[in-house]
């Protein structure tokens, strides 16, 4: 197998990567050998995977487009009738996209040159200019790998010894069901207020309530409320 050449740059997106591959293979943007480019593109994604880098979905979408075009080329060409003429050829569509993107990439370069020209022409009112631009977090100028390094450093700083404590549920519905079963052996009714008073926490009230609902469903208990927001009475279901 050929050695995989890894360029340690980040690509802005799938189109950026494609343009790089086209340039590397010294191809004309209007005359791309899709099968070569597609293979290299996928090789690149695999390398990224090996480096445990997350691959953005856009890259995957482009991979499938490339495979689609490649597979299409293996099939015999269908005769295109006049009516089908507006059915866009995916290869042409891709080239069109690449050209359009490349234009703006070039414009961005021109912008960068303009920026270079202006960066040394300072305003008198520096409060609006220099301080803002120099301290702005958006004006970063370091590579992806530097970023990765900082990220790792940050992660290493995290105290590994600090574990998250998982708190055991103090109350279970099952336990409360058993409680009610026992309770109603000797008594015939109770109220929600009483239950709330008996509880030590909000969680316990909730679990009590869930147990009541479950018992009502099983027709062990019955509940009644005389008016809205009134107290809830809980009875033993004697019809059972």
């Amino acid at each position, binding site marked *: 197998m050929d050695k995989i050449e890894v360029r340690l740059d980040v690509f*802005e*997106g*799938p*189109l950026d990567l494609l343009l790089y591959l086209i340039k590397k293979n010294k191809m004309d*943007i*209007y005359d791309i050998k899709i099968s070569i480019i597609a293979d290299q593109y996928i090789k690149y994604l695999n390398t990224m995977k090996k480096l445990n880098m997350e691959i*953005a979905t*856009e890259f995957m979408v*482009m991979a499938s487009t490339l495979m689609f075009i490649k597979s299409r080329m293996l099939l015999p060409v269908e005769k295109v009738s006049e009516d089908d003429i507006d059915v866009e050829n995916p290869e042409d569509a891709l080239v069109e*996209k690449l*050209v*359009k*993107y*490349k*234009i*703006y*990439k*070039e*414009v*961005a*370069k*021109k*912008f*960068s040159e*303009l*920026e*270079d*020209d*202006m*960066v*040394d*022409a*300072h*305003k*008198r*009112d*520096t409060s609006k200019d*220099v301080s803002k*631009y*120099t301290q*702005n977090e*958006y*004006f*970063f*100028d370091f590579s992806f790998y530097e970023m990765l390094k900082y990220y790792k450093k940050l992660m290493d700083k995290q105290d590994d010894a600090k574990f998250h404590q998982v708190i055991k549920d103090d109350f279970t519905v099952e336990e409360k069901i058993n409680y009610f079963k026992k309770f109603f052996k000797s008594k015939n009714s109770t109220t929600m207020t009483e239950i709330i008073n008996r509880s030590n926490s909000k969680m316990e009230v909730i679990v009590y309530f869930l147990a009541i609902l479950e018992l009502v469903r099983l027709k062990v208990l019955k509940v009644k409320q005389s008016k809205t927001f009134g107290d809830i009475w809980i009875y033993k279901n004697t019809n059972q």
Partner: protein
Amino acid sequence: MDLQEYKPVVEALIFASPSPIKPQKIADIIDEEGVGEKKIMEVVEELQNKYEKEDRGFQIYKLAGGYEFRSNPEYGEYLKKLFSIKKDYKLSKSVLETLAIVAYNQPVTRMEVEMVRNVDSTYVLNKLIDLEMIKVVGQKDSPGRPLLYGTTSKFLEYFGLDSLSDLPELSEIEEDIG
């Protein structure tokens, strides 16, 4: 009064103006028969030539339709020391790219930007808004009424442009690619 006599007035106005001052505004302030926008532009040009000939430490730039004094970029290295700038902070590649798409297609929606870039651009667009390089200029009359973005005068100032018509010609760039 002779136009020459207005030279220091124009100079003073540009010098003290907190933001680029438009030639029309200068003409309005002077408020004299026969002194219009055009005459002001002539005066400024004379000033510009004068500064250049004398190799002054400042220049007059035409930015976003108005005039502004800027330090002569030739002496940037000294100003860097004044402002303790260790490194030039430049816009990142993705920011420039997105800005280029907005500049040439405005008003433009996020979706339209993403159609060109093939990459999610929400974050970059928000960055550009924070930097005041672009702003929301309206909503498109299409399903979902998406926001439309356009460039600001700050954008022109930052790149040293007088107006959007000073942007590099797309057709020329296209030819270079072919």
